[in-house]
C-alpha cells in the first residue's frame, strides 16, 4: 500500500523527464498525442467503464471541442487558454441536452442514437461552410504563450514545451476522474452499472448518475479536442471519422474499462503501437476492429490492466480492487 504513492511519484518524474531524453520530434509528437488521448479516454471510461453505457458519440465530443476552440480562435481571436474551458463548457452543455433525451434509453437504442448524433455533427461541420469552411477545414491555429506568475511569459510552441502542457492537463484530468470515481457519486456509478433496476429500487437515479458521467466525460473529450486542435494547428471534418471512436474504445476496453489507469495506459500503448506498425497501415483498422471484437467477447476486463495487476505485488492490488 505504501509503495503506491512512491510508484506514482516515480512515474510522474519519469514522464517529466521524457523531453530531456527523447529528442526525436516524431516520438515527442507521439507522446503529446497519447497525452491528448489519455484525457479523452478517461472521460470515455466514466461513461463506458463506470456507468456501463456504450457511447459512440465520444469522438464527436472530441471533434466538437476542437471545432469550438478553433472557431473561437479564428472568428473571435480567443486564445487556447479561453477556448479550452469554453469548449469544455459548451460541449458539456450539449451533452446535457443530448443526454436528457438519450439517457432514458438503454442498450442498442442508446448506442444507435449516439452514432446518429456523431454523424449529424459531422454533417454540420461539413456543410455549414460559411462558419466552418467545410472540407477545407480551419487552418492557422496557434499555440498561445504561457504566462506563469513570477517567471514570466514562455513560448510553448516547441514540442518539448507543449508536451508539459499536455502532461499537466492529463494529470489534472486523471486526478479529477479519480476523485470522482472514489466519491459517493462514483460508488453510485458502479451500482448503476452492476444492477440498474436494483439500484433504482433502492433510491438511486440511474438517469442522474449516467448523466453526470456523460457530461463530465464529454467535457473532458472537448478539452482534449481543444488541445489537439491548437497543437496540430488545423481542424477538419475528418476529426469526426468513425475510426477515432473505434480507437478510443480500443484504448478503454483493452486497457481495462472501469479502472482509469487501464484506459490511460491503453491510450499511450495504442497511440504508439499503430505508428510503429505503419507498414501495415491498410490493415490497421481491420486488425484493431477484430481485436476489439474478440476482446469484448472473451476478455471483459481488457488486457492491460489485468496484466499490470498481475505484475504488481499482491498487497498493492487491494486498493484497486474496488475500481476493477
Amino acid at each position, binding site marked *: 500500500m505504501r509503495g503506491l504513492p512512491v510508484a506514482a511519484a516515480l512515474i510522474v518524474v519519469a514522464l517529466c523527464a521524457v523531453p530531456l531524453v527523447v529528442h526525436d520530434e516524431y516520438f515527442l509528437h507521439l507522446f503529446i498525442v497519447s497525452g491528448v488521448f489519455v484525457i479523452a479516454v478517461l472521460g470515455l471510461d466514466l461513461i463506458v467503464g463506470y456507468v456501463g453505457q456504450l457511447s459512440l458519440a465520444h469522438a464527436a465530443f472530441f471533434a466538437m471541442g476542437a471545432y469550438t476552440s478553433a472557431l473561437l480562435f479564428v472568428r473571435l481571436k480567443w486564445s487556447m487558454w479561453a477556448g479550452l474551458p469554453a469548449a469544455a463548457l459548451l460541449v458539456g452543455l450539449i451533452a446535457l441536452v443530448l443526454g436528457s433525451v438519450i439517457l432514458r434509453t438503454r442498450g442498442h437504442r442508446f448506442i444507435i442514437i449516439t452514432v446518429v448524433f456523431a454523424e449529424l455533427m459531422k454533417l454540420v461541420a461539413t456543410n455549414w461552410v460559411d462558419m466552418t469552411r467545410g472540407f477545407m477545414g480551419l487552418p492557422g491555429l496557434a499555440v498561445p504563450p504561457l504566462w506563469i506568475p513570477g517567471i514570466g511569459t514562455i513560448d510553448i510552441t516547441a514540442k518539448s514545451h507543449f508536451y508539459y502542457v499536455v502532461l499537466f492537463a492529463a494529470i489534472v484530468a486523471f486526478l479529477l476522474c479519480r476523485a470522482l470515481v472514489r466519491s*459517493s457519486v462514483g460508488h*453510485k456509478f458502479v*451500482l448503476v452499472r452492476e*444492477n440498474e433496476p436494483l439500484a433504482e*429500487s433502492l*433510491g438511486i437515479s440511474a438517469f442522474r448518475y449516467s448523466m453526470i458521467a456523460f457530461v463530465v466525460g464529454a467535457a473532458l473529450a472537448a478539452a482534449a479536442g481543444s488541445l489537439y486542435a491548437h497543437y496540430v494547428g488545423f481542424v477538419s471534418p475528418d476529426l469526426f471519422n468513425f475510426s477515432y471512436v473505434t480507437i478510443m474504445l480500443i484504448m478503454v476496453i483493452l486497457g481495462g474499462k472501469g479502472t482509469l489507469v487501464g484506459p490511460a495506459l491503453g491510450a499511450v500503448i495504442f497511440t504508439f503501437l499503430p505508428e510503429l506498425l505503419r507498414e501495415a497501415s491498410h490493415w490497421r483498422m481491420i486488425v484493431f476492429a477484430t481485436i476489439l471484437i474478440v476482446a469484448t467477447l472473451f476478455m471483459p476486463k481488457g488486457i492491460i490492466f489485468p496484466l499490470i495487476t498481475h505484475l504488481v505485488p499482491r498487497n498493492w492490488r487491494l486498493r484497486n480492487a474496488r475500481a476493477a
Partner: protein
Amino acid sequence: MPALLEGRGIAVRFGGVAALKGVDLSVDPGEVLSVIGPNGAGKTTLFNVITGRVRPTQGSVLYRAQPIDKLAPFRIAQLGVVRTFQKTEVFGALPLVEGVAAGALARNDPDPAERAREALATVGLYGKAHLTAAQLSYGDQRLLEIAQALAADPKVLLLDEPASGMNHQESRRIVDLIVQLRARGLAVILVEHNMHVVMTISDRVIVINYGEKIADGKPDHVRNDARVIEAYLGAPQAAHAVAR
C-alpha cells in the same frame, strides 16, 4: 388517521390482460400485511405499482396521505417505500458492504458503509461481509436482499416471496427477521406462497385471484373463507395448506 400506505382501486391492464381489477389495501407501522393468491394473480404487479415500476391504469397509491403513483421508482424508495424482488437481485460482483450501502448512499447518509454493516448484522450476514454477493448461497442471497432494502431505511418494506426455495430452517430465519422488523415499527407487505409462514406472522391477509381482491382480514378469517378455498381448488396442495 390515514394509513401509512394506502392503495385505492388499483387497476392495471397489460394490453388485453387485466392484471389487477380495483384492489384496495392499507398498511400501518408495526403491521405485517400478507398478499396471497394463485400464480399469476397479480401480486407482483401490485408491488410494481406501489414501487413505481408499473403505472396503474386506474386508482392511486397514497403514502402518508400523499399520492406517489406518478413518482419514479427511485423517488418512492427515497421516501421509504422499498421492495425486494421475486427473482433474486443483488450486486453480484461487489463486496457485500458496497452493494448494501446503496440504499444509504441514495439518501446521502454520512456513513453508508456503517449503515451497510448494521443491515448485514440485522440479517445475520455480518460474518460474511468480506465476500461478494455472487459467492453467497441462494438462501444467503435472499437475506442479503433484505439487508439491501433495510439500508435504505424503509418505513414500508415489501417482500416478494422472500422464503421461496428455502428449506425449513432458512424460512424460519426469514420469519424471525420479519417479526423483528415489525417490532421495530416497520410496515411489512409480504407476498408468500408458504402458508405456514403467512399464517404465523401476518396481522392481516388479503387474497387476490385473477387480479381481484376476494378476501381481506385476519389470518383465521381468511383461512376459512369459502371464496378463498374455492380459488385455491385448482391447486390442491395450496388448498390443503390454507385449510390446515
